[in-house]
Every structure is written in C-alpha cells, then in structure tokens.
C-alpha cells in the first residue's frame, strides 16, 4: 500500500519535473547541457541524505541490535550508491562540453569519488561475510566510520584545489524547477528504499521457511 502511494507520488512528480526541466526552465548561456544540472544536484543531495540514513541506522543497529536497522542501513546504502554513481556520471557528461574533459581532479569530483569508493567497500565487505549478525555489525561500523570521514575528506580536498561551479543568484523559474526535481528524486529515493526493505523482509521470511522445511 505504502509502496503504491510512493509509486504514484514519484511518477507524478517525475513527469512534472521532466516538463519543467525541458520546457519550463529558461535557457542559459551554456545551452541545453546546463539542464542536466536539474538531475545532477537532486541526485547528489539525495545520495548524501541516503548515506546519512545509513549512518543513523548503523548507530541504531549497534545500540538496539534489531535486524530491522541493518535492513534499513543496507537498503539506503544501495540506493545511495546508485545515486552517487548517477551523479558522478551526469557530472561527467556535463563536464565534457563545459570543461572539455570527462574528468578533472577538482575538489567535489574527487571527494565524490572517494565517497563512492567508501560505499563500494561497504558492499564488498558485506559480500564477504556469511554470518548475519556479524555482517550487520561490521557494516554498521563501516557505515559510521565512512560517514564521519566524508566531511574531513571534503574539507581537505577543498583546501587542496577547487574549480567546481558555485550556485549563484538564480532565475525563479530555475529555482522552481530545481525544487520540483529535488522533490521528485526524494520521492524516488523513498520508493526504492521502501521497495528494497520490503524485499529484504520477504527474503528473510523465505529463509525462515527454508530452514523450517529442512528440519
């Protein structure tokens, strides 16, 4: 039920966002390429939100030892990792016509890449542990350490170098489009997140049934 509502909400928002991004929003001097920013920024923000959820539920797991928190943390990390991959890709597509290169070791690009690598490691470690409780404990530890590391990485790399564009005063239509786009991606995040948790719960039930049948 919850998933159906989320599906409806995110579909409507996505359609409105698409209309606003391609038709409503005004052209800027950089042309059509600039419109990717309406996808790039929401993806990046939601990725950070997702990793914050991982951080919070990792702490909750270590405190309460409830399997539910591990399912929440790992589901959010999965969606966060997908969104991070997408915002790295959209950024790269934007950078090619704007900067002439696919990649440059700018501060935000570098810190995003490090962020991506940290959460890749999160899933690699998960795949190497078969015992459930241990897997939950270890990934909680990585979820906490990884998130604490992010601001330090960002500060250090900022001091090191930066060329990333800053957000300046924007046309109200641009702001509106960006807001709707963020709302759409937030709904999409919640949808994927809820879907993934539901899948984990089903998996869990299935495993219990299997164990019962084997007995």
């Amino acid at each position, binding site marked *: 039920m919850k998933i159906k509502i989320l599906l409806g909400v995110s579909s409507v928002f996505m359609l409105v966002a698409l209309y606003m991004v391609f038709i409503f929003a005004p052209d800027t001097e950089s042309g059509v390429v600039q419109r990717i920013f309406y996808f790039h920024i929401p993806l990046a923000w939601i990725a950070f939100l997702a990793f914050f959820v991982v951080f919070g539920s990792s702490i909750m797991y270590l405190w309460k030892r409830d399997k539910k928190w591990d399912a929440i943390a790992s589901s959010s990390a999965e969606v966060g990792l997908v969104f991070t991959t997408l915002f790295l890709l959209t950024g790269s597509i934007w950078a090619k016509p704007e900067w002439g290169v696919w990649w440059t070791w700018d501060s935000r690009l570098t810190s995003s890449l490090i962020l991506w690598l940290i959460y890749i*490691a999160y899933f690699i470690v998960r795949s*190497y542990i*078969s015992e459930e409780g241990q897997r939950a404990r*270890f990934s909680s*530890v990585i979820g906490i350490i990884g998130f*604490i*590391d992010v601001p330090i990485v960002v*500060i*250090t*790399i900022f001091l090191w170098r930066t060329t990333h564009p800053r957000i300046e005063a924007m046309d109200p239509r641009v702001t509106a489009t960006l807001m709707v786009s963020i709302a759409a991606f937030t709904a999409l995040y919640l949808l994927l997140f809820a879907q993934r948790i539901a899948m984990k719960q089903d998996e869990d039930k299935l495993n219990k049934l299997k164990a019962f049948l084997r007995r």
Partner: protein
Amino acid sequence: MKTLNKALVIAWKDILSETRTKEIISSVLIFAILVIVIFNFAFSGSQQTMISLAPGILWVTFAFAGVLSLNRAFIQEKDDDCLEGLMVCPVSRETIYLGKMLGSLFFMLFIEAIVLPVFALLFNVNVISLPLITITVLTTIGFVAVGTLFSALAVNTKAREMVLPILFFPIVTPIIISAVSASGLALGGESWGSITYWLGIIAAFDVIFLVVSYLVFSFVIEE
C-alpha cells in the same frame, strides 16, 4: 592510567613476539625498499623533478607498507587462536584496541625510521628534518588508528587481507593528501607557518578516528 598500563602490556607482547619471529618488520622493510626501487624505475629524472616527486613516492611507500604490516597485526592472533586468549583476559575490548594500536604504531615508526634515511640516501633528497619527522609521526598515528580497527574487521571476513586496503585507502585519503602537501612544503624549504595548517588537519583526523575507533572496536571483535 591503569588502562594505559594494560594496553602497554599487550603492545609489549606484540613487540616481544616480533623480536622472536621478525615476521612483520623484516618483510615490510624489504617491501618498502622494493617500492622505492620500483618508483626509481618509474620516474627517473633530474634532481629537481625528484624533489617534487619525493613526497608522493614517500607517502605511497608508507601507505602500502602500512597496509602490509597492519594486516599482520590480527592475522597472527586469529591463526593461533590468540584473539580468544586476549578476549578472555580481564581487560576491556577498548584496552585491546589501544594495545594493538600501540604495537602497530611502534612497528610502523620503526620501519619508517629505517626507510627515511634509505630514501634520503637513494634519492639524495633531504627528508630527515624536524618538520618531516613530525608529519610522519602524526600521519602514522592516523594510519594505525584506522588500520587497527579495520585490520580486526578484515581478519574476520572470508577474503581477509583483501579487505583491509579496500577499506583503509578511501578512509585515510584526507591524511595522505595532507601529508603529501605538507611534505612538499617542508622539502621546498617553507616555514612552519604553512605546514602547521596541514598538520592541524592531520592532528584533527588522528583525534577523531582514535576516539571513534576506540568506541566501536568492541563491536568488531565481539563473538
């Protein structure tokens, strides 16, 4: 104070067993020197280029050597079931972390104390100076603070020594960047003023990760 004493006993145990087996220090030392030799083939250039490349070479060497030696810290414990022995000792898990951390810190600093002069000799770059030694000691503390936690975690997974570098390198990037930048400034003959800026970041990283690792370590070796 009591905790520190107990931690020192654990560190002393590691040092004692190392003096008998010489497993970590000898192999890591040779590895570090090999890395330096390979870098020499990769970048051969004039004295001036060597000075600008030296900080990078030095920190890649130390980071690789660090991963190698930190990996060993818990593999021995695990293989001979010593970890169980340590865990039944009347000390807290946090004390075990401190002890293992101090042991690894000692090994790393010992290795670096030999590698730095060898590096200076082979590349003819003056890396033995007060600023560089300060940078090295502070960064090594950060390495072992994070590395000890992840080493204990890695040894309990199926892939064991594969896991540590994957976790360790992304987390320590801030101190590697700071150490390379600070070493570059120090080798360029800059004053303390510009170096302390980076040293501050390294010190902040050390404090944050010593505290966080100390707090979460008990979750990693609980069985």
